[in-house]
């Protein structure tokens, strides 16, 4: 039986960089995009020999804005992938889309290529808020794109939302939640905006501009409302920021949290298989010039301690938590032998709970998850 493999493919292009974005992405011309797809296909082909014992169970095309690629370009990527890699019977294949770039032609190509899940970056249903974020689309354009996806036949759609946006009020956020849940997407990712260093937002809001951001009380109220309203609408929270209708959890995402094997193709993409992590080079010119099989860098063989740490700080992001049985199966010792004290400390503070053979974060624990997770790092 072949091992399961998840594939991530990075498309580092967008029409215009959003003001809060710190991902590896930049605007590029048609020629540049075409050259990139060629290099990407070369890489996918060259790496195939390492994955003979695997079969692909999930694929995720992220960016950037993967939907900037033409239907043909995307089809080429999938052709190479299918030609050189074995696939499982019902793989989950997701493409991220910017609402401003959805066309019927693309969607038809996607469907033909086997794409069965689309993830649409809406962020907000308020056009003023969208403009402030530097997004290229409006709520109306999103709506048209969303309906087009349904018409073409996509039965698994994710919508990305953000709270704590500049100028956002509790009322406007509530409106966004209501409008989106009314559409009944199968999956909703809801994040709080984090102002990252090196983004235009950092200059605008990190220091004196802070007043433009919702205050802590409002931000917390938005967060609580997300949990309540989505829950009421039948969405189950399965990870800190991810909600899904039953059966529609994103399998690809879960692979990251549960430390399944995954390989990343494309600029800066991260991989982990067999207890080893690496990532591709992050400079576009390097990526384009290096030979097909030599774009990997930053190799790191994970020690047992590293693996235990990851099992905890990734696994605890899942609402189901970390199973004591699978921990002791993987590391040949009980969870308590390694983390007994830490777990006890946080259980006592009401941040962790232990039931049915699993350790998981409580609601309060989720709020301050960094504080809890940092304690699971071993060593001095």
């Amino acid at each position: 039986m072949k091992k399961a493999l998840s594939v991530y493919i990075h498309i580092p292009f967008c029409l215009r960089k959003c003001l809060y974005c710190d991902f590896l992405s930049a605007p590029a011309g048609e020629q540049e995009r075409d050259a990139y797809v060629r290099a990407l296909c070369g890489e996918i082909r060259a790496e195939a020999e390492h994955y003979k014992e695997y079969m692909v169970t999930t694929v995720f095309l992220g960016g950037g804005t993967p939907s900037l690629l033409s239907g043909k370009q995307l089809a080429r990527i999938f052709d190479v992938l299918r030609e050189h890699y074995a696939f499982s019977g019902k793989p989950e294949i997701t493409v991220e889309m910017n609402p401003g770039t959805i066309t019927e032609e693309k969607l038809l190509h996607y469907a033909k290529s086997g794409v069965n899940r689309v993830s649409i970056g809406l962020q907000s249903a308020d056009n003023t808020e969208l403009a402030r974020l530097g997004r290229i689309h409006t709520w109306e354009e999103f709506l048209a794109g969303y309906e087009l996806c349904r018409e073409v036949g996509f039965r698994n759609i994710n919508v990305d939302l953000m709270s704590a946006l500049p100028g956002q009020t509790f009322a406007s956020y509530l409106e966004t939640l209501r409008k989106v849940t009314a559409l009944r997407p199968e999956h909703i990712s809801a994040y709080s905006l984090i102002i990252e260093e090196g983004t235009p937002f950092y200059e605008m809001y990190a220091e004196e501009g802070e007043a433009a951001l919702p205050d802590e009380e409002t931000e917390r109220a938005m967060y609580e409302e997300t949990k309540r309203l989505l829950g009421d609408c039948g969405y189950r929270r399965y990870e800190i920021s991810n909600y899904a209708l039953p059966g529609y959890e994103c399998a690809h995402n879960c692979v990251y949290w549960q430390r399944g094997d995954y390989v990343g193709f494309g600029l800066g993409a991260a991989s982990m298989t067999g207890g080893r992590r690496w990532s591709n080079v992050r400079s576009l010119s390097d990526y384009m010039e290096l030979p097909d099989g030599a774009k990997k860098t930053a190799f790191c063989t994970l020690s047992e301690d590293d693996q235990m740490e990851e099992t905890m700080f990734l696994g605890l992001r899942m609402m189901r938590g970390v199973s004591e049985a699978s921990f002791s199966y993987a590391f040949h010792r009980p969870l308590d032998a390694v983390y007994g004290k830490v777990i006890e400390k946080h259980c006592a503070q009401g941040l962790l709970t232990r039931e049915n053979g699993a350790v998981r974060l409580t609601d309060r624990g989720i709020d301050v998850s960094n504080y809890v997770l940092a304690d699971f790092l071993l060593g001095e």
Partner: protein
Amino acid sequence: MVQTDQSRIRNFCIIAHIDHGKSTLADRIIEKTGLLTEREMQAQVLDNMDLERERGITIKSQAVRIVYKAQDGEEYILNLIDTPGHVDFNYEVSRSLAACDGAVLVVDAAQGIEAQTLANVYLALDHDLDVFPVINKIDLPSAEPQRVKDEIEDVIGLEAQDAPLISAKNGIGIEEVLEQIVHKIPAPDGDPEAPLSALIFDSLYDSYKGVIIFCRLMDGRVKKGTTIRMMATGAEAEVVEVGYFGAGQFIPCDELSAGMVGYMTASIKNVKDTMVGDTVTDAARPCEAPLPGYKEVTPMVYCGMYPADGAKYPDLRDALEKLQLNDASLRYEPETSIALGFGFRCGFLGLLHLEIIQERLEREYNLDLVTTAPSVIYKVHKTNGEVIELTNPSNLPDPTEIDYMEEPVVSAEIMVTKEFVGSIMELCQERRGRYISMEYMEETRALLHYELPLNEIIYDFFDALKSRSRGYASFDYELKGYERSEMVKLDILINREEVDALSFIVHNESAYERGRKMCEKLKDEIPRHLFEIPIQAAVGGKIIARETVKAMRKDVLAKCYGGDITRKKKLLEKQKEGKKRMRQIGNVEIPQKAFMSVLKLDDK
């Protein structure tokens, strides 16, 4: 053996207000006399330590011997003794001056006389030195040499009309300075046949040679084999080597005799045996009385020093031991703090001295330190008649056992231009200063005499002075004595637990203000916890100020994209690393730097 005729020796120092160009002039003189080629010259030769160069101040006394061929055709030996340039080191300055026969007074052609100019001149005149002025920085556009000359004559009463006009920076007029050194500074007139008496003006510890004594021979001779005795400490040792100072090196010679400046080594293990100001004599043929002016230097400021990492305690102890070999005025003794663990209570001559030691510990010994608020020494008179010299606020006896307290007071001289007199007087009032008198040096500048409590000036007085006079005020002080004062101990409670390392002694009337600022500051320094943390200031159990660190609401990682786990882990590691640099008090984690925050209560 050829001995230099005393009439060809000139022992001198250069005195100046800070930044008036003392060290630069010294460099030019050394350069001019060809002691070093220009290639070998590193700016400010005499300031050996990196710290001295960086801060542009002289911390330790240094000496150098220069051979100068004067215009009269004779060769002269000029011994330049460089003196420390800060009020913390006043005693060292006075001993260096005592080793000289004359002084070159450097005055900035634009700024004219400043507080330290006066203080140094008076100190030099007190030691019967012949002083002649030099006007430096004449190349500055704002230079007014004639005005400064007149000022020197009017204010100090020194003949200044023929003062050399120089630019040490550009090497202008150095020859003239050297000529005047030869002609205006008297030759030494000691008796080489009299019993040995030599003044120690500095010493340093060398791991091969032991203590190297820097001294000026007043009378007599000393050479290898002489058994010497330090008259104050009583230590005796046999001389291994004598010599004089090249630039940055020791040059051995056969003998030192009356009038000469040089060094001796005698396998002495500790600088404590060779205190600055002590008299070295011949044990076999001692002089009748020691040279005047010796006193034991005592620290004025104390603070606790703790290793940030408790395991480094032995390293800190070793480092302090080594520093003390070279610095007899540094004191330390072990102490324990509930908050900070094992450390040392250290005594310093002043805040600059404290900062220097702290920086050297951190740089040269690679130690990460937590320093508590500096404190002066209070005298606590107990009801049972006992008097305690209090260096650590935590040791203050129970108020019921205290009859009264005394605090050290200094006499300060502040020189300031007329327009800022008002704001400076206001500052002195705020700092509990007592106005003594004011005199106008000339029409535009005044010299203010105040008496100020030492604890009001050790933190940030100098900065406040500068900011309220746009940098124009200058300041000098000396300890006057102790005065009775209403002092109280201000305690800080974090999450209702008293943190001993944050306690400090403060005047009754300033307690509320200081307590409030302290709470505000700590509120910013202490990160949010899962629970609300009250920060309180208390005097004698009564809460006088309070702030609250709100409970942490949220601490969540950003979106984890495309399986880039490494970045997430780095964030968590950073968080964990941050925690390690915290001190645990009860269940509150306090960052190390919070303990130093008492130092930086803004003057606003």
